[in-house]
C-alpha cells in the first residue's frame, strides 16, 4: 500500500477535526474534535513506522527499526488520557459557573 494513501486519509481526518474546532460551539464537541486530530496523527505515525520498517528490513533482516514511532504513539495516548481528565474537569467547572458549555462564554477572559 503506498504511503500517500495513508497520508491522505490522515489529512482528511485531521481537517475534519480542524473544521469541527472552528465551527462548533459546544465545548465538549470541540474537545472531541481535538481527540480526532490526535488520532489522525497517531495513525500517521504508525503508517510511517511501518514504512520505515519495511525499508530497513530489506537491508538488515530481523531489525526493529521503526519501533520508536509506535512507542511515541503509546506516549501520545498516555498524554491524551491525562489531558482528557483535566480538560473534562475544567468543562465541568465551567458548566457549574455559567450553566452552559458554550465556548463563547469564555471570552470574558480577555478583559
Amino acid at each position: 500500500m503506498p504511503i500517500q494513501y495513508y497520508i491522505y486519509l490522515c489529512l482528511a481526518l485531521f481537517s475534519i477535526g480542524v473544521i469541527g474546532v472552528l465551527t462548533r460551539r459546544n465545548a465538549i464537541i470541540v474537545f472531541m474534535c481535538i481527540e480526532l486530530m490526535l488520532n489522525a496523527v497517531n495513525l500517521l505515525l504508525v503508517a510511517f513506522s511501518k514504512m520505515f520498517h519495511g525499508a530497513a528490513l530489506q537491508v538488515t533482516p530481523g531489525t526493529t527499526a521503526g519501533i520508536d514511532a509506535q512507542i511515541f504513539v503509546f506516549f501520545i495516548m498516555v498524554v491524551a488520557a491525562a489531558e482528557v481528565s483535566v480538560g473534562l474537569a475544567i468543562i465541568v467547572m465551567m458548566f457549574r459557573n455559567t450553566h452552559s458549555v458554550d465556548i463563547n462564554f469564555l471570552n470574558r477572559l480577555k478583559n
Partner: protein
Amino acid sequence: MSTLEILFYALSAFVIISAIMVLVSKNPIHSVLWLILVFFAISGHYILLNAQFLAIVNIIVYAGAIMVLFLFVIMLMNVKQENEFKKHLLVKFIGVLSGGSFLVLLVALVKQTVQLQGQKVLLKEGNIGLIHPLGKALFTDYVVPFEISSVLFLSAMVGAVIIGKK
C-alpha cells in the same frame, strides 16, 4: 484488488463518514457514539498495519475509558437539546473553507514530495507492533519517559480532583 486493499478502503470510508457524523450530529451523545465508531475503525487500521498492541490499547484507552468519561460528563450536565447554540452561518462557512483549504494545500504538498514517491507501507509483515519487541523497547530505551509519564498521570489526577472540588 486484493483483500487488504478492500479492507483499507472500507475502513477508510468508515473512518471518514463516522468523523463527519461526529460534527453533523446535533445531540452530543450521538457525537460520542460516532466517535467511538471512529476509534474502532482506527483500531482496525492498526490491525491491518500489524500494530496489534496499539490496536488493543486504542480500544481500551480511547473507546473504553476516555469516551465513557465523555458520556459520563455529558449525562451529568444534562445539556438541553433545545438551547443548542447556533454559530453564525458566515463563521461556519469560513471555518469549513479554511479547513478545506488546509486539506487541499497539504494534499498538493504531499503529491509533489519526491521523497515519498514509491514508498510502500508494510501491511501484514514486520513484527515491531507485537507486544514482545514493544515491551522490550519500552523497558530498556524508554524506561525514563515511561516513569515520567506515571508522574504526569499522578499530577493530572491531583489536578482533576482539585479543579473538580472547587
